[in-house]
Every structure is written in C-alpha cells, then in structure tokens.
C-alpha cells in the first residue's frame, strides 16, 4: 500500500466553487474514499475526487447507481477509511435505505446533497432547500441524523471538515446540505494548513484487544462503541437488524429499545458539540431573521442594510439544521417579538422554529420554491411591515 | 476414504431429521430417528464422508475410530 501524503500543507487562497470546496475540505479532513454517481449539480464533487484521490493513494469509484454509491462508502468505512459520497435530491432519495443502514451499523460516512428543485427531476440547475425534511425523515423508522448547511464556499470547506469529524466522533452518518447556488458559486477562500485543522479519527479498539472479548456495539459510558477495521482480526458481525452488544441480531424488544435509545442519546448528550450556528442579535432587536444555506446570504444582507436605516433586526444563521437547535431558538424567541424564516421551499424548517418558539415570538416565513433565490428586498419589505 | 475412520453424530441437537444423510449413505447405516439421525450399525461405516459433506446442519463428522 502506498503511504498517504499529507494533503497540501501550505495555506493558500483559491477561487473555487462550493462543490470543489467540499472536495478540498474532505481531503483536509482525511477522506480517502469516494463512491458515487453523476448528478447535477453535484457532479463537480465526483470529478474533483476522481482527480485528487489517486494523488494521495485514495480511491474513487463511479458506481452503477446512487444506491451502490452509498453502499460502497459504508463498506469502505467499515474497512477503516474515511468515506464520502455526493448527490442531489433524486439521488438522495435513492440513498436513503443505505443511509439508514449506516445509522444502524454506526458507520461514519458523509453524504453531500447539493439540493435542486424537486419533486422528481424538477429543476436540476436551480437552487432549493427542499430536502430539509428528506434529510431528517427520509428513511424508515425513528432515527437521528446530523445535517449541516453551508452558506458560502468557505463554509462548504469548513463544514465538510466538520462533517467528517462529527461522523468519526459519533460513528454517525452526517449529511452536508448544499444547494445549487452554493455548489456552483465561486468565491475566494483560504485553504488551511494541515496543522490548523482539527482532525478527529474514530475511536478504535486497543491493539491488544482480545478478539473473544470484543463487543462491536459495546455499551460504553460515552455511548460510542470502539470500531474495529475489517481485517484487524476481531472477526465481528455487522447487521442492519437490531443487534445486541455483540453485533448479532436479537429480536427482543428490550434490546431494540436499548439500541434506539443509545443511538438517540449518543447525539443528544452532546448537542453542544454538534449544533453550530452564528448570530448577530443585539439587545434592542425586535426581529430576528433565522436562516441557513444560501437563504442566509440574503437574510444577512437584508438585515445589514436594514440596520443602516435603524431597523431593529438581527440575524441567526444555523449551520447545523439537524438535530434542530431547539434550545437556542427557544432563547431567541424569548428575546425578540418576531422571527422571520426565509427558506427555498414551501416552509420546512419553519415548522421546527414554530415548535421551539412555542408561541413566545411570532414566526413568519418567506418562501421561494420554484428555483429563484429570495431577494433581500422581500425580506426588507417584511421587516418594515413587522417593525 | 481412510480406514479406521467412522461417522460420529457430533452435534445431535442441531439435526433437523431431513434424511439427506440417510439417502447418501452407501452402506445404509443411518436412519432418521424420532428427533434426529441415528446410527444403525457403526461397524459397517466405511468412512466415505458422503453424509458429512452433504449434511446441511453440521451434525455429522467422520472421526478416527478411537474417538467414537
């Protein structure tokens, strides 16, 4: 096997697309494996990995379909590699079953969804945030997911690193929700040097682990079992059936309950590490514009120009959309009179905002769902109306 | 087929009494019993491995005579 080189140690400025920034971020985070299927507007991610991975001894696979792409990254993850796939809405739908499998077997993987307008083939080259609920609930059964939504090319880079780290830390698939605008937008960004980047590797069993004593789904204090690479001699079983600590199927209800709870709590006990956001809310702000992804660009721009005209408005940008920032949004709702939620869909995350606000603040949506971005003037108009 | 080897019902609890081993025994020494396969006459076993190789349930094992 070829020794892996450290990827591009020098810090440098580049002018690249969001899709390319995902590739750069993944490589910086130690990703060595991509498998996927071409789809607009995510194909540039596959192309980037096809070009870059062989240079570091990594592997690129163009699979026969989206389903196979998802399966292959889970396989690579179990074989010990940091692995990623990328797609758009229709492909994301096809990946759901094996994404659920990854959740069940606790395989760290990252799935990038560069959203386009749906349903179905929809508008392949237009932006959308229509897959917010697909990311949350697209699979059968109750389960948690981590989903991050970058709002710029720089964030595409940084949140890809974060996504890889979170997946490794929590043995949990992470979805990175770009949209067509962020994926294709070109911005100047600074690629970090490798010693500036925090890189997290999954917890592995000790080298002298006794194979007879190894429990691949051990109930540890942190609820995250140490994960052995296939081929390391521990000979363990992995299954999409509910399993006990040994990894073998166990149909008992109490076993299923224990596992469901562990999968939930391993994330919910650590929300402070998972929920990322940025905000600029001042004490006398009466309105907050809460947004994520490309809609956040418009929101921040509308707030900043509004403030010049003394509008008492601030902004709150979610970088983590799942798990939902319930506590933070509840606090926000206690602070302001109105929360405006611009989204490139018919109103998906606003349901969560309303739930978290619990009547403490009025929650109003601004929605564009036919492929156009929301204009700052639309947000400005609503700001003036409510203030 | 080594001389001095004979069949053993190594894991009787796993037997599902399907009768496949009985059908492949060249000396007809196996029968389906009440719950699992039984050996009628171990002395006639020639250690051919037919039953061991085809048994779907890992019940049968050809072993050296002194192990029987």
């Amino acid at each position, binding site marked *: *096997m*070829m020794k892996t080189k450290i990827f591009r140690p020098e810090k440098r400025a580049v002018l690249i697309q969001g899709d390319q920034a995902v590739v750069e971020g993944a490589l910086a985070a130690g990703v*060595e*494996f991509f*498998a996927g299927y071409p789809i607009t507007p995510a194909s540039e991610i596959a192309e980037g990995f096809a*070009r870059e991975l*062989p*240079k570091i*001894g990594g*592997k690129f*696979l163009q*699979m*026969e*379909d989206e*389903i*196979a792409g998802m*399966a*292959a*990254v*889970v*396989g*690579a*993850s*179990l*074989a*010990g*590699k940091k*692995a990623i796939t990328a797609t758009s809405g229709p492909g994301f739908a096809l990946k759901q*079953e*094996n994404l659920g*499998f990854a959740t069940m077997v606790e395989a760290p993987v990252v799935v990038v969804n560069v959203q386009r307008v749906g349903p179905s083939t929809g508008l392949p080259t237009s932006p959308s945030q229509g897959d917010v609920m697909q990311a949350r609930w697209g699979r059968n059964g109750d389960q948690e997911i981590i989903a991050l939504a970058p709002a710029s090319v720089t964030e595409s880079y940084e949140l890809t690193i974060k996504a890889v780290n979170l997946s490794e830390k929590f043995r949990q698939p992470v979805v990175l929700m770009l949209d067509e605008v962020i994926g294709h937008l070109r911005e100047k960004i600074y690629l970090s040097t490798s010693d500036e980047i925090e890189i997290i590797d999954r917890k592995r069993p000790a080298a002298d682990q006794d194979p007879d004593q190894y429990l691949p789904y051990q109930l540890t204090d942190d609820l995250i079992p140490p994960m052995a*690479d*296939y*081929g390391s*001699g*521990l*000979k*363990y*079983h*992995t*299954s*999409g*059936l509910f399993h006990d600590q040994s990894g*073998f*199927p166990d149909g008992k209800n109490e076993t299923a309950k224990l596992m469901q709870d562990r999968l939930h709590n391993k994330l919910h006990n650590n929300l402070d590490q998972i929920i990322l956001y940025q905000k600029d809310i001042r004490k006398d702000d009466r309105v907050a514009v809460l947004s994520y992804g490309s809609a956040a660009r418009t929101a921040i721009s509308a707030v900043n120009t509004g403030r010049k005209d003394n509008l008492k408005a601030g902004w709150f940008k979610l970088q983590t959309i799942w798990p939902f920032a319930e506590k933070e949004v509840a606090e926000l709702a206690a602070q302001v009179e109105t929360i405006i939620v611009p989204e490139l869909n018919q109103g998906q995350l606003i349901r969560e905002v309303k739930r978290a606000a619990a009547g403490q603040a009025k929650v109003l949506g601004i929605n564009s769902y036919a492929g156009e971005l929301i204009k700052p003037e639309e947000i400005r108009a609503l700001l003036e109306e409510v203030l | 087929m080594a001389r001095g080897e004979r069949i053993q019902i190594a*894991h009787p*609890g*796993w037997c*599902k009494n*399907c*009768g*496949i081993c*009985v*059908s492949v025994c060249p000396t007809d020494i196996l029968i389906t019993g009440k719950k699992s396969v039984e050996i009628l006459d171990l002395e006639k076993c020639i250690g051919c491995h037919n039953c061991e*190789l*085809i*048994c*779907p*349930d*890992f019940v049968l094992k050809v072993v050296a005579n002194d192990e029987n």
Partner: protein
Amino acid sequence: MDFEKYLRMDKLPHIWCPGCGHGTILNSFIRAFAESDFDQDKTVVISGIGCSGRATGYLNFDTLHTTHGRAIAFATGVKMANPELNVIVMTGDGDGSAIGGNHLIHAARRNIDLTVILFNNQIYGMTGGQFSPMTPTGDLASTAPYGNIDQNFNLAELVAGAGGTFIARGATFDPRQLKKLYLAALKHKGFSFVESLSQCPVSYGRQNKAGDAVEMLKKQEEDTINFKKWQQLSTEEKKLKYPLGILKELDNPESEYTVRYQKIIEQVNNEGAL
C-alpha cells in the same frame, strides 16, 4: 482439518428449514476455505437479505449482513478500500439477480476481485414462496398461483456476458464438486461467480409438489450434467440440462479492478499532478 473454526458454533443450529440446501453450501464453503491459503482474519464475508443473507451470521470472519440486493455494492467498497482483504459475497437468487441484479453485472464488468456465491433455490423463501427471476417458467409460486409466466435468467451466462472472469455452477447434491468450485473461485484473481443450486423443500417444494429434500436432490441430479458432457449435446438437448462445473475461466490478474486502479495511483504519482 478443523472446519469448526470457520463456524460460529455458538450461533448454531441455523435458522434454515429442515432439508434446506443452504447449509450444504456453507458446509462446502468452509471446507474450500480451509484448503485455500487465505487468512481467516483478512477475509470479509458479505450478504444481503433473504435466506441466503443469514449465512454470514454463522461464519467466523468479519461479516456484514447488508440491505436487500446490495451486498456486492458494499463488497466493492470494502475491496477497493483495502484490496488486501479477501472479500466474499453470499447472495440469493432474489437478492442477487432481481433487486441486486444491477450490482451483479457491474461488478462482473469491472472484474473486481470478489468471490460471489449465489444460493439459487429458485424462490423467495424467507418471504413465503414468491417467484424470483430464477423460478422456472410454469412453476407455481405464492405470487404466481396460476403458473409463472416470467422467463428465468440463465444467470451464469448473464454474468459471463457481463465480463466476469470465473463462472461456475454447482449443486448441493454434489458437495465434493461444490467445494472444488468454491476453492477455484476463491483462488481466482478477478470477479468469480458460483451459481449454487440449492433445494428449498418448504417454500418452493410444497407449492410445486416437488417432494422432500431427498427427492429434490434426486431431481437436481437428473436436471444437471457435467459441463464437458453438456458441450457434446445437441442444441435441443442442451436446453433440457443445466451444465455443472467451471463454465468460464480467464486468467488475467492484470485486468482485475483494484490492480488497474493501483496502476492509476502509481501513474499519477510518478508523473505528478495531471
């Protein structure tokens, strides 16, 4: 030879029905593995869903019981991620040729070094006897109560046509041949495929009045013929028998997928960035 070290003895007896041929396939497989020089610790066995899918739970290797039809796609990821691993796929006729048919032909086309053992019992057993792409035309199934009008695949020919470099067919009535075929398939560097005819006396046999396992094995023997003998038959006679043995073998390790990808890695690193 100690075969039991390849089994998870504490998981036996297995869940398969009395007389099911799948256990004979496992039995033949562990004997073939014991004769190979593969390292048990460096071998991964991957299955999908259905009766065949349960095979991995009984085998003492790193084992992965995946989603329906996708075992080969998972296996492709495992093998590419670490080509030093021996990767074996155990799939069924429904799992491998219906829902997973696309992955089967594409893995064959890539000629990636996987050993695929397809348990062909000609029926969906676990879900209660629905027809599969391998159920012969005219047979009865719970979803073909008036007779199956679908044509069944000649799966070995399909995989050969897709580019698989080792193609064989064996049957549970002849476990000695099965073992030899598995051993040859394991040793083959490239995509190897062994269609393994297996009897299902319960979900297939009862509906089709095929008798018990012993009768089904007799029928299996009657319906099959050694490949070399089959080649001597007339075109009409050939249609009546399934040939058993190694049906195709192309020995060209350089054409194997992970080997070819490794060459790309070397090329890129020798020439510098493209």
